[in-house]
């Protein structure tokens, strides 16, 4: 029975349900010190001096490092850019602040102490002198030419400018009967994995090796960047990602804190552990999402969308994170959605302010693009007195492949069929009738529709900044090693962070080789034993890594068959492996267990002909063909049905239907888990979560008491329908998935809430939609 397509139970779960997983804080090394950061209490200040004398007088204060000491030892943090039309003016972003601090929580010094609690005591004794400066919190102000500059080496506060054009926007305006215009504002929130960041850095003076145990999604890339930043030989750095307690794109970061930790490990000659507190994490781990879009959509009166134009402003924070251009461009490129438009035009400014740096989070910006187009369609439908679904049907791409005006080629899928399926799941016609009936009773039910094509496997970074390495994610290399008993280790340079790789990669490997799955084990996360890989990101695992697993498995199978053919005195091409037996195709009884073949290949090598090499190991790479900016094109339709309580401002879900197509599903249970989990994260981000700063730049949401992530009672049950249109260019037909739920939920939920309270005169163009915000909107509408 083939393993691909089966919802088998996860092979990694036994350790997790028994508490025997190993996350970074579960690791203790001999002689290990604990580290704590001294962080800025100011949003913006000149750094006049950092004095560690008193801290080091503490009996448990072992050592410390300041920004001034770190400056000559560690180069700037990396920033990637895109191939086209991007300008990055690089702020001087260092692991510890050295001249000015530019957001609350920015690290200014790092101390090492004998234990976890003492580290915090010692950090408190570090004396820092600041001269507070006026903070810049609003990008609309900060972008103005006369605004004070946050970075002396920039011309102004625009850290990144991207301009993208596609199709014929002039024709779109020319043919338009009217131009729909709005300003949308999306709020700041982020992934908040339940495991915060953490790392142990260790320097061995004898081998001159730097070893890190680090909660990261990118062990290999982190290694390469550390080598550049620290000017340290890459082959002397080993990064081990143990179990990772959630990543959600946030852990794609190259954390400045980890650079500082390496310096302290080298300085103290002892392993140093840093485990981030939640407060630190909310202040200084990456934030995401905050953008505004000034949008124009030229329209025909008959409902035809002709084009879309936006000026997008991203609140980039105090420094540019390596991936700033990703979520910035991601939003811009997703503006046309799955609709046929003639023209596309986006100007993106990522603007420096005194907030936490802005980085990657599940969906990589595409939810803002989806929100803009999906919200606009609903508002346009209202203006034209049309049903919003009807307007979508008129404009949706009817056939694939379709060359989108952005340059993407959507290679497969039937968006109309997906929409129809979702409408059927909620019984759309009946729902509208029910809505009308409830309104008469003074109850406010809303139906939200959002659909989008998700680009899975972005690959657009380029070495615009020549001094920095830039990872590319369109290939994967996988090694398979069979041991002397015929069991196989699959070595992958990725990291699972809830993403079920140990199961799905084993399923693909089992089918490729022809072995029972319980003889296969996946090994990930350690740069010393796995092939180079760009990490768990961009929904690339299914589309790029799994095909590499299959190719490597087939190569290993060939080697086993070669030895088997010799032992069975058959032709190599007649060999097959079925359920762990090497056999001659069509000749019953002529077979050997793979374990016997393995034994011969390792320990009876002398009995093999000279041209058959010893051992059983294969390494193969898969290079994914690109389709525009991305590798595969999964898509989804979300229809949440909500009821808004206009007395309390709370949103209750009555239904939530999802149609999802990510090509061939290796493990439908795992796919559904990702779809539902992603959607929940999107719902939370829309309704509850917000990073709130006051006008002085103080972050007001520094614990989970203030930053509300959804609980079990906030979430509905989601109904998921799986469509499976094979990816035409990917062997196996897999498409990336895992980000989608989080992309579509945002637009769908906003549309549902808006649809509910629209009869009360409320127009929603900004988020979050927290109860207090909904009440505020209702109050404003009442006047």
């Amino acid at each position, binding site marked *: 029975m083939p393993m691909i397509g089966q919802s088998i139970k996860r092979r990694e*779960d036994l350790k997790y349900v028994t508490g025997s997983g190993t996350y970074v804080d579960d690791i*203790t090394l001999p002689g290990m010190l604990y580290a704590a950061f001294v962080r800025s209490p100011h949003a913006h200040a000149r750094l006049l001096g950092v004095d560690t004398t008193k801290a080091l007088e503490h009996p448990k204060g072992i050592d410390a490092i300041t920004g001034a000491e770190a400056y000559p030892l560690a180069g700037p943090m990396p920033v990637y850019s895109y191939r086209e039309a991007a300008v990055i003016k690089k702020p001087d972003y260092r692991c510890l602040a050295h001249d000015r601090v530019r957001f609350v929580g920015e690290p200014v010094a790092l101390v090492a102490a004998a234990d976890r609690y003492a580290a915090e005591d010692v950090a408190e004794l570090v004396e820092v002198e600041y001269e507070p400066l006026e903070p810049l919190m609003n990008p609309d102000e900060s972008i103005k030419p006369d605004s004070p500059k946050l970075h002396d080496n920039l011309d102004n506060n625009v850290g990144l400018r991207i301009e993208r054009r596609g199709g014929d926007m002039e024709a779109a305006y020319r043919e338009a009967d009217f131009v729909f215009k709005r300003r949308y504002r999306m709020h700041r929130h982020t992934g908040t994995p339940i495991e915060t960041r953490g790392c142990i850095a260790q320097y061995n003076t004898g081998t001159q090796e730097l070893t890190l145990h680090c909660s990261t999604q990118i062990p290999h890339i982190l290694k390469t960047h550390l080598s550049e930043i620290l000017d340290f030989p890459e082959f002397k750095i080993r990064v081990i990602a143990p*179990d*990772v*307690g959630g990543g959600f794109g946030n852990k794609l970061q190259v954390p400045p804190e980890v650079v500082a930790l390496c310096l302290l490990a080298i300085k103290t000659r002892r392993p140093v552990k840093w485990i981030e507190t939640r407060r630190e994490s909310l202040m200084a781990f990456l934030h995401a999402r905050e953008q505004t879009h000034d949008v124009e959509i030229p329209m025909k009166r008959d409902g035809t969308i002709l084009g879309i134009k936006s000026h997008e402003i991203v609140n980039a924070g105090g420094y540019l994170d390596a991936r700033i251009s990703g979520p910035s461009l991601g939003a811009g490129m997703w503006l046309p959605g799955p609709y046929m438009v003639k023209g596309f035009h986006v100007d993106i400014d990522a603007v420096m302010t005194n907030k936490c740096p802005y980085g990657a989070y599940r969906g990589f910006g595409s939810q803002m693009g989806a929100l803009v187009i999906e919200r606009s369609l609903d508002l346009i439908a209202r203006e034209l007195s049309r049903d919003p679904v009807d307007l979508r049907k008129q404009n949706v791409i009817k056939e694939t492949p379709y060359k989108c005006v952005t340059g993407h080629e959507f290679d497969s899928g039937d968006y109309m069929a997906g929409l129809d399926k979702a409408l059927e799941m909620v019984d759309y016609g009946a729902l509208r009738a029910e809505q009308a009936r409830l309104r008469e009773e003074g109850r406010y039910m809303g139906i939200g529709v959002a659909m989008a094509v998700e680009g899975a496997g972005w690959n657009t970074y380029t070495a615009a900044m020549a001094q920095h390495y830039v990872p590319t994610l369109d290939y994967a290399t996988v090694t398979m090693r069979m041991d002397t008993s015929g069991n196989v280790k699959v070595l992958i340079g990725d990291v699972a962070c809830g993403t079920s790789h140990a199961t799905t990669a084993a399923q693909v490997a089992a089918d490729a080789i022809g072995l029972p799955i319980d003889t296969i084990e996946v090994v990930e996360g350690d740069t010393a034993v796995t092939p180079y890989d760009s990490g768990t990101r961009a929904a690339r695992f299914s589309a790029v890594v799994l095909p590499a697993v299959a190719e490597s498995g087939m190569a290993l199978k060939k080697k086993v068959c070669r030895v088997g053919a010799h032992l069975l005195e058959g032709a190599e091409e007649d060999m097959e492996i079925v359920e762990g037996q090497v056999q001659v195709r069509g000749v019953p009884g002529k077979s050997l267990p793979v374990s016997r073949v393995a034994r011969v290949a390792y320990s009876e090598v002398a009995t093999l002909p000279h041209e058959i090499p010893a051992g059983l190991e294969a390494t193969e790479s898969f290079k994914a063909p690109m389709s525009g900016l991305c590798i595969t094109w999964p898509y989804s339709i979300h229809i949440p049905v909500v009821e808004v309580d206009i007395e309390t401002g709370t949103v209750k879900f009555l239904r939530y239907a999802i149609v999802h197509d990510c090509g061939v599903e290796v493990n439908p249970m795992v796919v559904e888990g990702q779809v*539902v*989990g992603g959607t929940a994260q999107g719902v939370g981000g829309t309704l509850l979560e917000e990073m709130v700063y006051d006008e002085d730049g103080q972050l007001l949401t520094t614990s989970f008491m203030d930053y509300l992530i959804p609980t*079990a009672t906030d979430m509905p049950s989601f109904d998921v329908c799986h469509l499976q249109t094979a990816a035409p260019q990917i062997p196996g037909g897999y498409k990336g998935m895992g980000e989608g739920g989080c992309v579509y939920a945002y637009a769908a939920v906003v549309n549902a809430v808006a649809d509910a309270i629209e009869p009360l005169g409320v127009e929603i163009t900004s988020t979050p939609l927290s109860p207090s915000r909904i009440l505020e909107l209702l109050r404003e509408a009442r006047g």
Partner: protein
Amino acid sequence: MARTVQATVNGRKYYEENVEPRLLLVHFLRDRLGLTGTHVGCDSTNCGACTVMFNGKAVKSCTLLAVRADGAEITTIEGVADEDQLHPLQEGFWEKHGLQCGYCTPGMIMSALQLLERHPDPDEATVRQELEGNLCRCTGYQNIVEAVLWAAERLKSAGA
């Protein structure tokens, strides 16, 4: 003043000297006793990753001082299975894909243990309500609810 803490954890006796009065129970369990299955997620009693059974009650060990554990009986995730036989809740989380990254899982299971003690035959709404103090960022809770209902069913039929 450092204190001595004598406690029974997962049925075994522990005797720890020099316990700082400010040491949190979760760090006592993890750093002193080596029971690293209990996790820290928020430091503020919101996320429940650190939930353990303390004298028969599910408590969040990140805001309880270790010295309070003197004389206490504690069960952590490491003590939930009966030798090699998984508890139905552990099986349920596995069976129903009630976890992804696994970080919240131990705390979730400890809270669910108490839930099933209080409500041997819970409905979906009860499960959701009782697990409100445990945050999961991966699953959207749907399969966690399924897992607990599965375990309840299993325990019921075992008891019948």
